[in-house]
């Protein structure tokens, strides 16, 4: 299966959230705010008076600091800039313009430490200002010798403790400096390369008096805002509702998910998509790629055959599909064939020790049977390579042979084909060479990430924000 962009489809862009929702009317962009989820709410409420945000240039320190400043409330924060004037900062981070307008801005590029400390006293003495950001602190502190710097930092700590104001120091110094030992909390923001794509990560080095359930998080600066991702959470399938079908995109079939359609441009008839996954990708995340196309095919009056992943609970799958498309569609136009289950082999008239060829024949027969029931005679085949590999570990050549035949047959009949492939599969490279498109799923810092290798796409965090069966994809920028 080839996936493609075009045909009037917009790629998932920074503007998607404001301008586009999928056909089922849901937004695909996560909005998980640092101050409300991470425990930094506690920072805003008290136990952490002083916080150091460090990282190299361009990692997102200023946006993180501005997010915290924003949470202080209108008129209760101050931004002390030793780097850029207000107008320039507003241009660089236009999404934060309102925050900067709502708070005091002090341009100290030409000031010395005495003036800066006096400014802080003026701000903290009336106890009206609750949060002060120094961006950057080292831009100012580097002008002082070590002892004088430490004393100025101690002065600030004492002023913060007495006034209750929270001081946020932004620093580009990678190593530990004197302030590391004085502050209550240290956050580090980093840019790391993951599969040739840039991923942003923030690391909590310390937060005194605050429980840290996880030390590293993935975040994005999409739309110039800081959005971080908690660990993947399994969706609540009880909230599955009737699915509103998504029509074909030109000549391509829809994935049944606005997010996946925007990413890959739909499923070209006759193509094969290989979805490679790391062993630590949770099954519900794979299900978010596996089920929407099946649901949409059934909703469109078409048919589908599913050879599920090992460990899949067919009852849960059946229940989700029934809720989404109704009992009749599931009964009449879907075949779930679990090759690892004896009862399924029996109903498909397969022996217990069936060969790859026999299973291939059974799948072909099911495809032929269901094709007759499909409104436009097309069928979707979703297949776990892992299940078949487990079954035919000693005869992988035969498995490859029948998979190859299957790809050719489906191509000729304009069907759609999705193969789920474990990263460590011994036949991985052979399968990938036969696939027209290729997506990868893996986990980093508890977040499920996805990107297209063929065609090349950006990298996205996969969540379930509203519909439990459908993925929400947020681009990491």
């Amino acid at each position, binding site marked *: 299966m080839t996936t493609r962009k075009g045909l009037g489809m917009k790629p998932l862009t920074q503007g998607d959230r404001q301008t586009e929702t999928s056909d089922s009317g849901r937004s695909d962009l996560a909005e998980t705010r640092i101050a409300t989820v991470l425990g930094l709410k506690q920072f805003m409420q008290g136990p952490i008076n002083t916080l150091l945000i460090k990282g190299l240039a361009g990692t997102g320190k200023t946006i993180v600091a501005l997010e915290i400043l924003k949470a202080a409330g209108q008129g209760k924060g101050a931004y002390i800039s030793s780097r850029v004037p207000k107008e320039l900062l507003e241009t660089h981070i236009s999404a934060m313009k309102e925050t900067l307008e709502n708070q005091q801005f002090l341009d100290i590029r030409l000031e*010395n*430490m*005495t*003036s*800066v*400390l*006096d400014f802080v*006293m*003026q701000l903290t*003495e009336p106890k009206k200002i609750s949060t002060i950001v120094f961006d950057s602190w080292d831009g100012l502190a580097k002008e*002082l010798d070590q*002892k*004088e710097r*430490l*004393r*100025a930092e*101690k*002065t600030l700590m*004492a*002023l913060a*403790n*007495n006034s209750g104001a929270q001081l946020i120091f932004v620093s580009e110094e990678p190593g530990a400096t004197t302030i590391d030992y004085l502050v209550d909390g240290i956050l580090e923001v980093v840019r790391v390369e993951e599969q040739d794509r840039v991923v942003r990560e923030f690391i909590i080095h310390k937060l005194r008096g605050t429980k840290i359930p996880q030390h590293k998080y993935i975040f994005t600066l999409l739309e110039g805002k800081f959005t971080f991702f908690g660990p993947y959470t399994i969706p609540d399938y009880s909230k599955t509702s009737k699915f509103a079908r998504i029509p074909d995109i030109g000549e391509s079939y829809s994935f049944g998910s606005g997010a996946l359609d925007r990413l890959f441009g739909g499923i070209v008839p006759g193509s094969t998509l290989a979805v490679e996954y790391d062993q630590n990708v949770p099954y519900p995340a794979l299900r978010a790629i596996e089920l929407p196309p099946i649901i949409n095919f059934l909703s469109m009056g078409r048919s589908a055959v599913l050879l599920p992943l090992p460990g899949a609970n067919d009852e849960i799958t059946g229940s989700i599909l029934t809720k989404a498309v109704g009992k009749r569609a599931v009964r009449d136009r879907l075949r779930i064939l679990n090759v690892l289950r004896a009862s399924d082999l029996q109903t498909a008239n397969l022996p217990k020790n069936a060969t790859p060829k026999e299973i291939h024949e059974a799948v072909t027969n099911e495809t032929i049977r269901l094709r007759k029931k499909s409104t436009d005679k097309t069928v979707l085949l979703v297949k776990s390579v892992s299940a078949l590999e487990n079954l035919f570990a000693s005869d992988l050549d035969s498995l490859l042979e029948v998979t190859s035949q299957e790809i050719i047959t489906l191509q000729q009949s304009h069907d759609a084909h999705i193969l789920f492939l474990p990263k460590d599969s011994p036949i991985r490279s052979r399968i990938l060479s036969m696939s027209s498109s290729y997506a990868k799923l893996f986990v980093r810092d508890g977040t499920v990430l996805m990107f297209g290798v063929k065609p090349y796409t950006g990298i996205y965090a996969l969540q379930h924000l509203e519909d439990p069966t459908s993925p929400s994809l947020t681009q990491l920028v």
Partner: protein
Amino acid sequence: MDKVLGQSGTAAVLFHMKMTNNLPDPAEFHKKLLILFGVAGTLSLERAIVKDLLIRLNWALDLLNIQGSFDFDATMNKIVKGVKHDD
């Protein structure tokens, strides 16, 4: 005070208190320090100021009781009187 707050910190405090020209009145100074640094911070600073003065005057550190909380105004007055007496 600059041994605790540094030269910048001390200058900033004095500037902020508008006490850069003359020697500040200890009681007034104490009040203003309290506003900026609270009880604990003020006590530490005042103890540092008294200690430094005693060292500069070559007086024994145990001459004045500055352990725990102490009256900065009274202590400073004692020092001033002592200096005058020495003269």
